[in-house]
């Protein structure tokens, strides 16, 4: 594995990284906060304030209001239409359901008209809420007509899935953070060491670039594993995220991912001449991948034009590999395509890093 020199160097790099308390703190603090925000925004389902203005005192109207009150998705406030309409404009209500006085009387064979008032510029969950309300009306309608529900089984199936959006998101978020920590970690170090003349001092000894690169990658891997463990522990224990697959295999993929991104970080560090430019170049590498690699939503949902590009990004392979293990319980054998993709990127990244690595002064 590592030679004696590489081990000595890697140990010293570990010391250097671990003694930098401030950056350790922030490297852990941000991912944890980030995960928490997602957990709260996506995980805890905020009930929607719903005003109901009912001018009807029919049993059906009462039944509908009762069923809305019982639904945890809504906070129901009843009142007059004019009053609720004002509250809606003031932003105190998200939606106002108006049941006219003749509800549910069927006039002229048409359906009873219930109206839903919404400010679509403020409320973007309408496509979600509309079917919910329609379903409630349908249930009541069926009861009234004595019809058996046709789709209830399917509905129950959807609810039976115990996985939340956070379960889907976590592997992607972890992969994304691995990418950021690794690219920034190795790239920043190289630029910093070069700027201070440390690289020059090191390479006036018989040190070979490959020993230096191997040692810094090994040390960074160690650090990234610690960071990953903290984030994962937080996600599993505090946020109660589920990982179905084998945790050891999940780690193996994460280590591979980190190695891929560390080599890419070395390339970035070799191109960048200053601390400012490493931020800019790093972002060029990082941001398109966050958007295109299926971290937040599946690649299939993207425009057909960018899909071929999205399919071959390094982060795409990492995200799909980690996600398959985490939410589908896949084994390493089942994610071979992702592993091959990562392997190809590692070879490309390492070859480029070794070729471009400059320890000499780079004129700014």
């Amino acid at each position, binding site marked *: 594995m590592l030679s*004696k*020199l590489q081990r*000595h*160097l890697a140990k*010293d790099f570990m*010391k*250097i990284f671990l*003694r*930098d308390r401030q950056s350790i703190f922030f490297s852990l603090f941000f991912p944890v906060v980030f995960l928490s925000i997602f957990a709260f925004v996506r995980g805890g389902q905020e009930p929607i304030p719903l005003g109901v203005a009912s001018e009807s005192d029919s049993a059906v109207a009462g039944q509908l209001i009762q069923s809305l009150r019982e639904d945890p998705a809504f906070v129901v406030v009843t009142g007059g239409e004019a009053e609720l309409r004002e509250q809606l404009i003031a932003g105190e209500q998200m939606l106002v359901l108006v049941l006219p006085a003749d509800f549910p009387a069927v006039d002229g064979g048409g359906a009873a008209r219930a109206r839903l008032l919404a400010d679509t510029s403020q409320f973007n969950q309408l496509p979600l809420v509309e079917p919910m309300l329609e379903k409630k009306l349908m249930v009541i309608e069926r009861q009234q007509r004595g019809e058996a529900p046709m789709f209830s089984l399917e509905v129950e199936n959807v609810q039976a899935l115990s996985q939340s959006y956070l379960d889907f998101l976590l592997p992607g978020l972890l992969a994304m953070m691995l990418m950021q920590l690794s690219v920034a970690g190795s790239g920043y170090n190289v630029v910093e060491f070069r700027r*201070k*003349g*440390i690289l*020059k*001092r*090191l*390479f*006036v*000894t*018989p*040190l*070979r670039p490959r020993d230096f690169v191997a040692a810094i990658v090994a040390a960074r891997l160690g650090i990234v594993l610690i960071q990953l463990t903290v984030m994962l522990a937080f996600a599993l224990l505090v946020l109660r995220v589920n990982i179905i697959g084998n945790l050891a295999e999940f780690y193996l993929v994460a280590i591979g991912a980190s190695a891929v991104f560390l080599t890419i970080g070395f390339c970035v560090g070799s191109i960048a001449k200053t601390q400012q430019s490493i931020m800019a170049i790093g972002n060029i590498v990082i941001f398109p991948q966050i958007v295109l690699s299926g971290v937040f939503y599946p690649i299939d949902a993207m425009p057909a034009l960018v899909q071929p590009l999205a399919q071959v990004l390094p982060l795409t392979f990492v995200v799909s590999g980690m996600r398959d293990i985490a939410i589908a319980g896949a084994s390493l054998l089942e994610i071979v395509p992702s592993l091959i993709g990562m392997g190809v990127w590692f070879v490309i990244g390492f070859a480029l890093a070794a070729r471009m690595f400059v320890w*000499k002064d780079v004129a700014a």
Partner: protein
Amino acid sequence: MEPIIHAVDLVKRYPLPEDKSRKFAAVDGVSFAIFEREIYGILGPNGAGKTTTLEMLEGLNDIDGGSAVIAGIDVARDPYKVKKLIGVQLQASEYFEKLNLIELLKLFGALYSRDIDAMEMLAKVDLTEKAKARPANLSGGQKQRFSIACALVNVPRILFLDEPTTGLDPQAKRRLWDLVMELNRAGMTIVLTTHNMEEAEFLCGRIAIMDHGRIVAEDTPAKLIDQYAPEPPAAPLKGNIEDVFLALTGHALRD
């Protein structure tokens, strides 16, 4: 006697800062021979090409023209072999700031595959009481002495010092000179650059005066003074190397 360092017509070209398509020679055909156990000084103003010349010898900078042979090894062909033989103190080198002096010395030892006694190295440069300190907490003189300690971990045959006393106060300067003399007495060949006339005169057996990438004169300090320094009309002394320098380059230090 065979020289331990033999440079012939060394050339280094850089693109002009104001016009990248054109090049200028930072080092323009420099030749010299340095012998074992010598203290050889390269004296010159900033931008004369002193550091670039040293860096070509050290394998830190590519040689664009001419050749450099150190202890029989062609630097361009086998820089790694040369790097094992030499110790280098760079002009402004920093160290990993999160490691203390002992850890840094051991790290440098590892780079040469040597297990070293870090305390003994520190004792040589009189820094034992700073063993657990970080480089950032050293004074200027201590930092330079530590740099020399790092350059000594491989027990080099040749020690390169690039402006070792620049920015040091007189006491620290004096202390460093003593250290250099001591290392030289123990048998080490020393090559140093400086723009301090007094230093060149005090330390060096021979001096090369560089200006605009060329060596304009090379000899012992005494002979240079004989040859170039104008006789001061009333003073009993002949003048000093500073006069030599001014006579040869026609200007004071460019800082």
